[in-house]
């Protein structure tokens, strides 16, 4: 056990899986000599050599397109796209090929690639470095979409992503890359993709979130307990697709009230999908309208105003209280 940041925990996952599985290789811009601009791939080049740890030319489409070929022929490429805002330059390779190869070849070929990329706001960055557009990928049949929220679950989910037989898009919440440390066990640990976790239990209200937004969501839950005597069930989705509907539905059947939090723009975002599933499966249990706290439907502002854009504990708390005030 060691206390690690998320960057260190992700690095540990890469080291341990590469050690065990020769088919895994890492490719991307600045991942080898520089160790990745956030240092997630630090030390891999020295240990596994340039055949398996590849500094690519500057071309995202080439990274993913090449990885598709590698994956078809028995390798397990872990691609780093430097920021999620640049993953769109590779979008057609993901959508048109990575996501469809198994389907198109009627199961003859499959594409076990991982696309790792930092996403989200709160780090005072330039344009294109702060957005949260997981919906693009979650919306694409054939892709899995995973977003961890802490060092330990980041490590365990990345391990699963590398072992998954299908393409996994793995968004890393960069604002908490180094924000806090957590005990991470030395021995390998894997969390199933497609399973949410109930990280706090209560009967009064359900709060659902994921990624960097787990921090303000948990703060809001703490304050509800302290200030209002309200106990919330808090669910960390961990996978956006496949979505763990069962965990969400079970909780809402118990509490009857739910607030969903995502950093992404509001319209057509993950919260909207969770709402739809809850309406389908737990409508008769609801005691108040389902509410969501999200980013606005605007381009996330440059950093002077980004905190005004990002959902925070205060906003979550306000909406949670409004939900609790509804008399059914």
């Amino acid at each position, binding site marked *: 056990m060691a206390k690690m940041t998320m960057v260190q925990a992700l690095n540990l996952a890469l080291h341990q899986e590469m050690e065990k599985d020769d088919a895994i290789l890492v490719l991307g811009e600045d991942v080898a000599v*520089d160790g990745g601009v956030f240092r997630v791939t630090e030390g891999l080049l020295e240990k596994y050599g340039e055949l398996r740890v590849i*500094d690519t030319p*500057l071309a995202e*489409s080439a990274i993913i397109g090449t990885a598709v070929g590698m994956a078809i022929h028995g390798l397990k490429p872990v691609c780093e796209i430097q920021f999620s805002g640049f993953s*769109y330059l590779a979008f057609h390779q993901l959508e048109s090929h990575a996501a469809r190869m198994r389907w198109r070849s009627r199961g003859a070929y499959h594409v076990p690639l991982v696309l790792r990329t930092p996403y989200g706001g709160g780090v005072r960055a330039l344009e294109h470095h702060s957005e949260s557009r997981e919906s693009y990928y979650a919306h694409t049949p054939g892709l899995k979409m995973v977003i961890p929220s802490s060092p330990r679950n980041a490590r365990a989910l990345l391990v699963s992503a590398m072992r998954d037989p299908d393409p996994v898009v793995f968004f890393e919440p960069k604002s908490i890359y180094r924000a806090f440390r957590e005990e991470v066990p030395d021995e390998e640990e894997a969390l199933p993709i497609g399973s949410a976790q109930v990280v706090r239990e209560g009967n009064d209200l359900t709060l659902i979130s994921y990624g960097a937004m787990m921090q303000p969501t948990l703060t809001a839950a703490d304050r509800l307990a302290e200030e209002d005597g309200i106990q919330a069930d808090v669910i960390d989705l961990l996978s956006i697709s496949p979505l763990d509907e069962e965990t969400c539905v079970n909780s809402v059947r118990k509490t009857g009230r739910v607030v969903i939090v995502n950093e992404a723009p509001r319209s057509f975002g993950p919260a909207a999908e969770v709402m739809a599933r809850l309406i389908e499966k737990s409508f008769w249990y609801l005691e108040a309208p389902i509410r969501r706290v999200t980013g*606005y439907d*605007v381009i996330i502002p440059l950093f*002077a105003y*980004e905190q*005004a854009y990002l959902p925070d504990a205060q906003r979550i708390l306000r909406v949670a209280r409004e939900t609790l005030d509804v008399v059914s």
Partner: protein
Amino acid sequence: MPRTTIDLPYQVEHISILDEDGNLDHDLEPDLSEEFLLRLHRYMLLGRRFDERMLKLQRQGRIGTFAPIQGQEASQLGSVAALRDSDWMAPAFRESAAQLWRGQSMESFLLYYGGYFRGGEIPEGIRNLPVAIPVGTQILHAVGLGYAIKVHGQDDVAMVFFGDGATSEGDFHEAVNNAGVFKTPTIFVCQNNQYAISIPRSHQTQAKTLAQKALAYGVPGIQTDGNDILAVYVAAIEAVERARAGEGPTLIENVTYRLSVHTTADDPTRYRDEEEVAVWEKREPISRFQRYLKDKGMLTDNAITALEDEIKDEIAEAVDKAEERMETLKDEAITMFDHLYAERPAYLEEQRQAFAAHWEKA
């Protein structure tokens, strides 16, 4: 049948007029007025000093991340100096000297890198595109601008900047190819500063030059000593004149060096050594141009000192103004709802009002 060699229409030339030791090729020296040369010099110095000031402001937390230009002043200014106001210019994200020459204010840079999108405002009548951060993506826009210029029957040109790394992106190839097919008045300026973050030019492509990439698309490509402002200018003006005359696009590779960090978030000691930087420090563009101007009797040490003082004051004033402006803009987060569409849709107006109601309480 014997195998034959296909005769290709272009070769790649390299231009150097004023070398790092101050040697001048008199035959190639362009005939430029004293006023124009001094103006170039002024902007080189302004570009350098403003950059240094921004680096300090960033380190003090007064602005955010930005991409320094140190060492690339000649490559930028020699290029834009060949444009006139009605021409278009599309920067990447490391062209502050070029943008200053093209009429953008220092204050706007400080606002932009201070985290205020107001800094992205394009002043009335200036034909610069905003900064484009996704590498290489803006290159195609210069083809479209060039096409529109043709449709409008004008003889303007569109000049676009990008780095060596950008030449690996598909958009670069699509742009040069389309410009060749459409014969657009587009000048592609590649600032080969030897690095794309940590990736050296030699790892970016096996091609010997970047200029030769144009040849595959039937477009002329030329390489310059990008730290020699005279060579850069000559390549640019020739390309501009060809484009104005309806003879189509050119790719120019300015061979230069990024003397500073990639951005303020980068640590270059991880991927390059001091000796290499020292070699390029000696080739740096400003001192060699100053020597040239002194030899021509256009510049003295006293004049340089006076100019340095003047620039220092100008920068200080811009910083003061920008910081005052930031203070007044601080509480205008609601402007995040502006400029998304010509008309704000109802759902967005609703979000804006909810924001206003909540934000006041916070």
